[in-house]
């Protein structure tokens, strides 16, 4: 399992670069991760990121686009606006979570 250096901390990541340890993430790290993929985090982004973190904790898996809409209250359209092209993966990456596995 690779270890990469972000913000002078050693972070465990998988081969693609997604964080693998839930507790290694914090909000400062999120800012760096977002910057890495060209996203400036606004309040709207944070709302989604925090939902993802909380939901992962209670459900044990990263929520899908649909769940972010139905349980998180953020419409799909908005998710695509906040995290263009590949919202599910981008949101998961910034939130320090694995890619979602669900189909919808």
């Amino acid at each position, binding site marked *: 399992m*690779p270890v990469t250096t972000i913000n002078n901390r050693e972070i465990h990541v998988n081969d693609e670069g997604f964080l693998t340890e839930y507790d290694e993430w914090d909000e400062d790290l999120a800012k760096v991760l977002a910057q890495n993929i060209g996203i400036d985090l606004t309040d709207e982004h944070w709302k989604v990121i925090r939902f993802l973190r909380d939901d992962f904790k209670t459900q044990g898996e990263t929520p899908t*686009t*649909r769940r972010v809409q139905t349980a998180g209250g953020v419409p*799909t359209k908005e998710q695509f606006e906040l995290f*263009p*092209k590949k919202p599910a993966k981008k949101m998961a*990456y910034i939130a320090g979570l694995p890619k979602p596995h669900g189909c*919808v």
Partner: protein
Amino acid sequence: MTITETMLVPNFEDEAETGRKIAIICSKGNLDMAYPGLILANAALGEGVETHLFFTFWGFDMITKSRMHDLKFTPVGNTATHMPMGITPFPGVTGMATHQLKKSIADLGVPEVPEFLEQIVGAGGHLWACRLSADMNHLTDADLYEGVEGIISASDFIEKTAGAQLLFI
């Protein structure tokens, strides 16, 4: 364990740069066959792929306002249901099978067809209706789900999907 000097960042730009495009032809009107197209379209959109859905023949029911909420699933002639085929045409069997299928799908958190189409349109997917099917059934734009962008001919479809990966369902 390998230590990387530079940050390992996932690559999120592939699909957008390559201009990948996919067109899914939905030709079936049974509830079970409505899903493969929708699920793949949704997955493609989530990967940033430009996605077009073309509804033709029986698939027209998926986008016809008066029918899209009522698609049914029947085990008749479908040996994959592992039921004795002789009992499948009995009254009530189609209703039961439809009900069970809907429940299985809902249990997985997958939406019903109209809501799914809404999610696909929200994600940037394009819905097109087949001109020939519209003419055959004497239907117009007014009869179709508002997310459908237009009624187009086969040649229009061929033009729109230049360079696209095609899927026929």
